[in-house]
């Protein structure tokens, strides 16, 4: 099997070549050469033609095993991994055979943040969070952050829908010693059409949907036609949730938004409740893309806590557990502090 793995090497010195998020180009850390996409693809094509054939086989656990084109060591990858690292020489190994056919992404959003940016952002995560356990600010844990391209599906929809809203208008006035409250009830119908572009849903079961939802939105102006070169220096996954399956979540989000928009058009009432709705979503386009994410897993009390930073916008999300000892200290301090203040207050007021 030819060209199963591709290690981007500097055409000048043959050292490892990595994507540079700040410059949006490729930088050789050894000789300092920089390449744009056009240069690289021309020279890489030449390079890959010279690449020796490498063999892939499955080990006894069903994992794919490749030979590192740089040092010859064995690279073990899961079925879903499409770009990984050699643990010995840290060379990037892009497993091209994993990203062919239906697994070939249409677009990629390249990383805009470096690992240093991500680490700096995570170091600030504890600000204003006094109940965060110390382990989450330990540099040894933070430095383990990894840049991963996550598979996403994006959908375009044309939507037609209608809602029936139960609306009430309440007015009140005083008349003849009585408080008179008048409630007018209306049945409001709204029908309309609208369209949505590039509604994203992650296509991997390895990452929590909620975390992937939380790093939205993405700036699609940065979408590039997919080439393997963008994966250089990062891990990458291929999807294991197909486009039809993932579309259920995108469609549900689209329907909810459509109902909200139609309902919001009912104006001038005191209260409104959607009685019934009929929404028809027509999928007009679907693309498979790779989204850049900095991932960090930190173990605390035998549980793994996952954090993700949008590799494009820098938005950092993740649930931080509560340090119970700190929580008790805060609770008791506030309890006794407020008790003391109230005691003084009540004594001054003469209530005690």
């Amino acid at each position, binding site marked *: 099997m030819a060209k199963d793995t591709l290690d981007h090497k500097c055409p000048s010195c043959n050292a490892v070549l990595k994507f540079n998020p700040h410059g949006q180009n490729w930088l050789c850390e050894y000789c300092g050469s920089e390449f744009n996409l056009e240069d690289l693809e021309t020279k890489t094509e030449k390079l890959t033609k010279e690449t020796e054939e490498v063999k892939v086989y499955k080990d006894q656990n069903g994992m794919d095993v490749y030979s590192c084109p740089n040092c010859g060591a064995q690279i073990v990858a899961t079925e879903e991994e499409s770009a990984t690292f050699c643990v010995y020489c840290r060379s990037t190994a892009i497993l091209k055979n994993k990203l062919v056919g239906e697994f070939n992404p249409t677009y990629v959003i390249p990383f805009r943040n470096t690992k240093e940016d991500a680490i700096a952002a995570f170091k600030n995560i504890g600000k204003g*969070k006094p109940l965060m356990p110390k382990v989450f600010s330990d540099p040894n844990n933070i430095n383990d952050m990894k840049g991963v391209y996550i598979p996403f599906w994006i959908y375009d929809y044309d939507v037609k829908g209608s809602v029936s809203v139960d609306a009430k208008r309440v007015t009140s006035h005083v008349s003849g010693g009585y408080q008179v409250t008048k409630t007018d*009830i209306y049945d409001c119908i709204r029908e*309309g059409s609208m369209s949505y572009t*590039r509604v994203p849903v992650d296509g991997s079961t390895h990452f929590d949907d909620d975390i992937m939802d939380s790093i939205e939105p993405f700036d699609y102006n940065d979408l590039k036609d997919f080439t393997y070169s963008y994966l250089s220096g990062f891990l990458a996954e291929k999807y294991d949730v197909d486009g039809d399956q993932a579309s259920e979540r995108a469609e549900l*989000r689209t329907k909810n938004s459509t109902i909200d*928009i139609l309902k919001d058009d009912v104006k001038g009432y005191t209260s409104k409740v959607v009685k019934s709705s009929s929404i028809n979503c027509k999928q007009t386009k679907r693309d498979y893309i790779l989204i850049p994410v900095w991932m960090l897993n930190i173990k605390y009390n035998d549980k793994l806590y996952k954090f993700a930073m949008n590799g494009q916008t820098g938005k950092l999300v993740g649930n931080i557990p509560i340090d119970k000892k700190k929580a008790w200290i805060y609770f008791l301090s506030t309890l006794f502090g*407020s008790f003391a203040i109230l005691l003084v207050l009540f004594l*001054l007021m003469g209530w005690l």
Partner: protein
Amino acid sequence: MKKIFSYLFIFAITLSVCLNVNAFDRDYNVQDFSDTLSEKQLEKLRDRAEEFYDEYGLEMMIYIFKEGYEYDQLKYKCNSYWDNKYPNSYGACFAIDVTDAEENSYVVDVAMSRKYYTDSEREKVFDNIRNTKSDGTYAMCEQFIDSAEEYSDEEKNKTPFFMLIILPFVISGITIAVLISKNKMVRKATTAAAYLNKDAINFTRKEDRFVTTHVTRVPINTGSGGSHGGGSHGAGHSGGRI
């Protein structure tokens, strides 16, 4: 942590300074502009009003006029004296005009803090005063203090104790809940509003159809004896001519 305690300390100091303004002022609170009462009677009323303040933490004011005030004028006086001195305090105020005392007819205004005394309690105080009118002005003032004490019962005074225990738990609970919520940064996306093409919204039908109307009438509780909304101290009045 240090920050929180420094804020709490500043809050406590500020509060205590503010509260010190509202100490009991016996000469201001009990005044006889009519010279009806003897000095001894006046001092005794002042002593009792101060005891009432010490016992219940409520202000008590007694004013006696001989100006031929009508009820509305008396009510205005009552509000003015209270708002001038205790705009944010609770308590009980009794004003009486004794111009027509010889004819055994008085214009009386009783103002009692609505948040502390109920409407019916205020009415009972007024009734008690009415029943002692034949005993003279001083007796009416004493009756006012007795009645105010009667309805400033122990159950009501348990409220501060209850609050003193419960409030710190509520404050601490809210503080911890806020701090915990700060650690939750993951939210499930349920809508796609960010991906809507705002220029492509096209409404094809907008119809608001009237269905029905419900009307409810609730009688407004105005009380009796000429009661009316109080001043900024939140007092309610009961009173009139007796």
